[in-house]
């Protein structure tokens, strides 16, 4: 059993650590998530379109990129960029390194989601778009993509939420994000159980808020679908 004095001590530590951990989340975890998700999505979109384009050099280049970033661990990618590149003269701040690696990694995974979504749209939709005089890019923009967005929202949402959690890996390259902060406080207070539970709750809150927005987007793009 936890004694009364110990309980008070734990509550005290949790209270004191609340704001530092929250700040670490607001300062690093959330920006890292939002920035890399946005950049990753843009990268993913162009990668997906390039892979579908049929233009051989682009297809090969993007296939190579996806192959590398899907086939190696995120942690190893972080270490190569942050600890490895300085030896060839490229030194990045921890945050910049994290943004680059997460973006490239998310871009690779999400491009496959977007590509699959575009390919899932029935050929008849393209033909109907062509039949009213659209060019290929008009058909893509006006007819296929809006439908592909709907198809890809649930898997993209999942990947977004897993990104929130993956950002904890940035701790390994000295970004003082949420998890790193928790770790630091746990190290000096000797209350790892309660501090890591607190950290976990923060992640839970962040990803719950994101799921909520995902749900809203799914409703918005769900128009025209039988419920």
């Amino acid at each position, binding site marked *: 059993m936890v004694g009364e004095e110990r309980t008070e001590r734990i509550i005290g530590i949790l209270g004191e650590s609340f704001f530092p951990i929250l700040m670490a989340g607001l300062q690093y975890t959330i920006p890292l998530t939002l920035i890399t998700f946005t950049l990753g999505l843009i990268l993913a979109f162009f990668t997906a379109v390039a892979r579908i384009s049929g233009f051989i050099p682009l297809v090969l280049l993007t296939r190579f990129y996806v192959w590398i970033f899907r086939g190696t661990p995120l942690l190893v990618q972080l270490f190569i960029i942050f600890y490895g590149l300085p030896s060839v003269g490229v030194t990045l701040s921890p945050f910049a390194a994290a943004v680059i690696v997460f973006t490239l990694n998310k871009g690779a995974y999400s491009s496959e989601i977007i590509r699959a979504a575009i390919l899932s749209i029935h050929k008849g*939709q393209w033909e*109907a*778009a062509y*039949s009213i*005089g659209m060019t290929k890019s008009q058909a893509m923009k*006006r007819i296929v993509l809006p439908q592909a967005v709907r198809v890809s929202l649930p898997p993209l949402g999942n990947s977004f939420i897993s990104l929130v959690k993956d950002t904890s890996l940035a701790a390994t390259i000295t970004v003082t994000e949420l998890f790193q902060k928790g770790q630091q406080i746990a190290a000096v207070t000797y209350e790892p159980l309660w501090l890591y539970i607190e950290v976990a709750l923060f992640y839970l809150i962040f990803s719950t808020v994101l799921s909520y927005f995902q749900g809203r987007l799914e409703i918005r793009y769900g*128009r*025209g*679908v*039988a419920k």
Partner: protein
Amino acid sequence: MITIDNLHKWFDKLEVLKGVSLSIEKGKTAVIIGPSGSGKTTLLRCLNLLELPDKGTITLGDKTLNITAGTRLKQAEIVSFRKQTGMVFQGYNLFPHLTAAENVMEGQVSVLKRSKDDARKKALSLLEKVGLRDRADMYPFQLSGGQQQRVGIARAMAMDPEVLLFDEPTSALDPELVGEVLKVMKDLANEGRTMVVVTHEMKFANEAADQVIFMDGGVVVEQGTPNELFHAARNPRTLQFLNKVFER
């Protein structure tokens, strides 16, 4: 309006159109009939270049395409030729994320650059014409097959094409819904639209067509007025086909 001369189309090693020639006058309705696999759909899709022919000449309106082995059409050429046609598909192919009215507006706004207001006005009047004014703001999934196909017809007409192409527009429909679509098509034929219709509806052919074209094995075997073709066909392949469909 339409002249096709010696049109050939291969799918890999399979020659599907083996020198099709025919012509259709402005304002007339031509119905193409023939057994499955005879190349009807392929011919229709060559007319709006959804399939690119390998050889031959197509004249449509004031544009002529002369296609030989070395021809590489640019997208702009394909699009400007295609804009003279409108197509109605067997599976409707409505845009599911747009309402009926938006389906009819889409090409007007994004291709013809009409204003949204003008496009909607035109969409509503076309929907009125196909009997769906009150369904304008419904999504395709809320409409029956026959209603969806009528929206498909309105969508094709919204672009003011010279020629309307129909590929078995009623064959995906429940029997009780076929009539409402054929009626709209008959009205269009009577208005003097130029139409090319692939169908198995012989009654429609008989009543609405000016010209019936019988295809078999990738060529036009025989053609004429409905009367000529249905009652005075001479070619044994035509007769065999007609005997089968009319069970006579």
